């Protein structure tokens, strides 16, 4: 930036005054004391910024054109593409919630430096949704089995796996505005986007999807700035030590919740959506969440009163297992999915046991049985083998079987005369501390209590254009696809497990 532009930038920030023509109170009050001035995390004029972002967009869209001409979609491993039908809209939901979140932050924070940064971030989040929707269009048009891709966002909001994303990212724009900053900019973007947007592209490339890698890396190039927004906000709020207890509480809450949602979903995509696995998910987590985020980023703030999350050790204990358990549950629920599941085969068994000793004992029998029941002629599905459907956690929305089925930590809490299932002590603490944020979401099983499974699938709309073949299938390569008639023959009735507690 030339000197004159620096001056213009500084001048732009000085257009700030306490106006008297309108209500000065923020639309959403905050419990934090926010100083009027802080360190500018952005240092750039929006005009120049937009030019730079437009260039990034051009490159990404240009790549998609090239990928189309070269038929690159045919090179993608089916397993990767199918899991992505859930995780990509999960991410787009996060972007949408972040657009609203940054708007809320701009409205509530009376600090010009930070507003400038969040204004740019809001445009970034819009850009990301557009990139992801363009990518999805590319998949719809060029992936060999587009079923599900044509209705992913709508499907997401109805599917239990989608509710994990909805429950997590609602925190970007609900509750206290600084708590939202802690969740969006500090925990999700600083601790987790390297896993999501740096490691996942490596996995995508290893599994043939260069379009996703290109899109995600373009998105990631904005994240450093969002991290700076979060850092700038924290340092501003930490100027007043009365804010410290609330900040530590927000960090504790969102670190736990983000761990439940993202470690489960991203871990699942990284390992169960991959044939080639360059990393074990638990190692990615150690690298970026523990060694970068806690050991470096948070450590720098401990002198100002910031504490590492108290549940860090418990999170470390659960991280190696969460996504395996989610993978098992999503495979067991395959008729309710809007993507094709896959079976795990001997090379997968070997890799999992090598990287997660004990995996075979915990999950091997399930995957063998899953494989044996893949063909519709067998006439059985895994849901029939369960003594009861697992409740979904009222906070994180994961099935209550975590971290592993044999170590299930589910518990029941009561609030307002109703009973709710939560998956863990961490989620119980969050529910008890902020019950109104979580008590009003209807559970998936409650919604369909007493329904025949075939009718549930039809109600969700998870059938192919012929109106009878399911979108969800137990594997990616069985000869005959399951139809709604196959499911109806099972006479499987959904029973809300909480009704019998």
């Amino acid at each position, binding site marked *: 930036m030339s000197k004159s532009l620096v001056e213009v930038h500084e001048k732009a920030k000085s257009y700030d005054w306490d106006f008297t023509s309108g209500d000065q109170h923020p639309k959403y009050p905050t419990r934090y004391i926010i100083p009027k001035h802080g360190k500018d995390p952005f240092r750039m004029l929006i005009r120049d910024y937009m030019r730079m972002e437009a260039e990034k967009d051009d490159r990404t869209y240009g790549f998609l054109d090239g990928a189309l001409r070269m038929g690159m979609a045919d090179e993608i491993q089916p397993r990767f593409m199918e899991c992505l039908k859930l995780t990509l809209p999960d991410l787009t939901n996060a972007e949408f919630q972040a657009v609203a979140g940054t708007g809320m932050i701009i409205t509530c924070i009376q600090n010009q430096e930070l507003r400038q940064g969040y204004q740019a971030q809001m445009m970034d989040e819009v850009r990301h949704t557009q990139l992801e929707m363009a990518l999805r269009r590319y998949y719809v048009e060029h992936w060999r089995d587009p079923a599900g891709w044509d209705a992913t966002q709508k499907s997401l909001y109805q599917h239990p796996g989608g509710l994990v994303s909805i429950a997590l990212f609602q925190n970007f724009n609900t509750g206290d505005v600084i708590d939202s900053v802690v969740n969006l900019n500090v925990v999700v973007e600083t601790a987790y986007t390297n896993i999501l947007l740096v490691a996942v592209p490596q996995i995508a490339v290893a599994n043939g999807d260069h379009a996703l890698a290109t899109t995600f890396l373009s998105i990631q190039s904005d994240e450093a700035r969002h991290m700076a927004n979060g850092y700038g906000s924290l340092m501003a709020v930490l100027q007043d030590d009365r804010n410290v207890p609330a900040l530590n509480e927000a960090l504790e809450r969102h670190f736990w919740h983000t761990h439940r949602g993202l470690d489960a979903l991203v871990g699942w995509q990284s390992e169960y959506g991959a044939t080639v696995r360059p990393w074990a998910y638990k*190692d990615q987590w*150690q*690298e970026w969440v*523990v*060694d970068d985020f*806690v*050991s470096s980023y*948070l*450590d720098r703030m*401990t002198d100002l009163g910031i504490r*590492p999350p108290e549940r*860090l*050790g418990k*999170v*470390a204990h659960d991280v190696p297992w969460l996504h395996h358990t989610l993978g098992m549950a999503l495979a067991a629920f395959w008729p309710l999915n809007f993507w094709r599941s896959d079976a795990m085969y001997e090379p997968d068994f070997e890799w999992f046991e090598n990287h997660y000793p004990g995996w075979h004992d915990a999950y091997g029998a399930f995957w063998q049985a899953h494989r044996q029941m893949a063909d519709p002629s067998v006439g059985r599905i895994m849901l029939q083998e369960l003594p009861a459907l697992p409740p979904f956690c009222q906070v994180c929305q994961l099935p209550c079987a975590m971290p592993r089925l044999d170590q299930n930590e589910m518990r029941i809490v009561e609030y307002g005369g109703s009973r709710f299932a939560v998956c863990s002590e961490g989620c119980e603490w969050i529910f008890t501390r902020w019950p109104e944020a979580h008590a009003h979401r209807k559970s998936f099983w409650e919604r369909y209590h007493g329904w025949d499974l075939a009718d549930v699938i039809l109600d969700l709309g998870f059938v192919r254009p012929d109106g009878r073949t399911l979108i969800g299938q137990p594997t990616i390569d069985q000869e005959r696809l399951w139809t709604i008639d196959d499911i109806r023959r099972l006479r499987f009735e959904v029973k809300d497990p909480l009704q019998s507690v």
Partner: protein
Amino acid sequence: MSKIQVLPYDRAFECAEEETILAAALRQGLYVRYGCKHGGCGTCKSLLVDGDVEESGSTFALGPSERAEGWILACASQPSEDCVIDVSSMELTEEEFLAGDQIGSLLTEVETIQSLTPDIRSVRLRLVEPDAITFVAGQFVNVEIPGSEDVRAFSLANPPSEADRIDLIVKLLPGGRFSQLLAGTLRVGDRLRVYGPLGQLKIRLTYRRILMIAGGSGLAPLLSMLADLAHKGNTRPVTLFFGARRPEDLYCVEQIARIRDAMPVLEFIPSLSDAWPTDWSGETGLVTEVVARRLPSLEGYDAYLAGPPPMIDAAIPLLRARGVRARNIHFDAFLPTGGP
């Protein structure tokens, strides 16, 4: 004379014949991070983007893979042609880079000199000007040899909460300048110039168990860390292995016992490698052999090593094989500066 261009600042400086890049930068009022100045700590690690250098002195802190990636130690590199180096990893602002040497200069007074073992001394320096030092447990200082510009690096053995003093643990080396000073002219009440604090060794903020391995005078930074952990109410399990040759080479054992009283999660495992009395109930053998025997799996540990290079060289592959991630092994090599 070679020109050294420094990224990411787009600045350059001249480096004279037989001058290290670090010395030239400091001489010309620039600042890059540094520590021991003799290849032992790795603080001055920089990326050589273009040009070539010759190594001068020890480069212990530079691993083979780092060398292959183009990393150099500025304190142990003399340019053989014009070079471009990148110091982005030091995370200095341009203002800090241009502000010159920012390492503190401290005037101290010798308060006590005590024998810990036949060849290890404890030296307590009382801060005179300024009257306190702010540091992180695990860091070291450079002590100036009186009447010269030479310095010798020693870890602080006291915790940061005892900010009015600097406790050093000094191994007497035949012919070593500081050893000669201790054996000869240095007296209680003498004044010593000290520079620091330096170095990046510190307890990392994680959830993992802590493994410490000390050999010889290497106990010093670990003692500081242990006292600091106890002071802060640490609850992470800590295991300290301390290797010595003979019983009379073990020291500060009572101090460690006091720390253990204050921090019950500490387990202390002394070991003797050369000779031990018949009633010795502790471990025997090289300290790394003892670690191998006692801890078959080390997944979920952060490791801190301080001692002579052969001990560190033996420990690192063992720790890696037992499951410690490479990034979670932190060490402070005790490198004799050598020579009078």
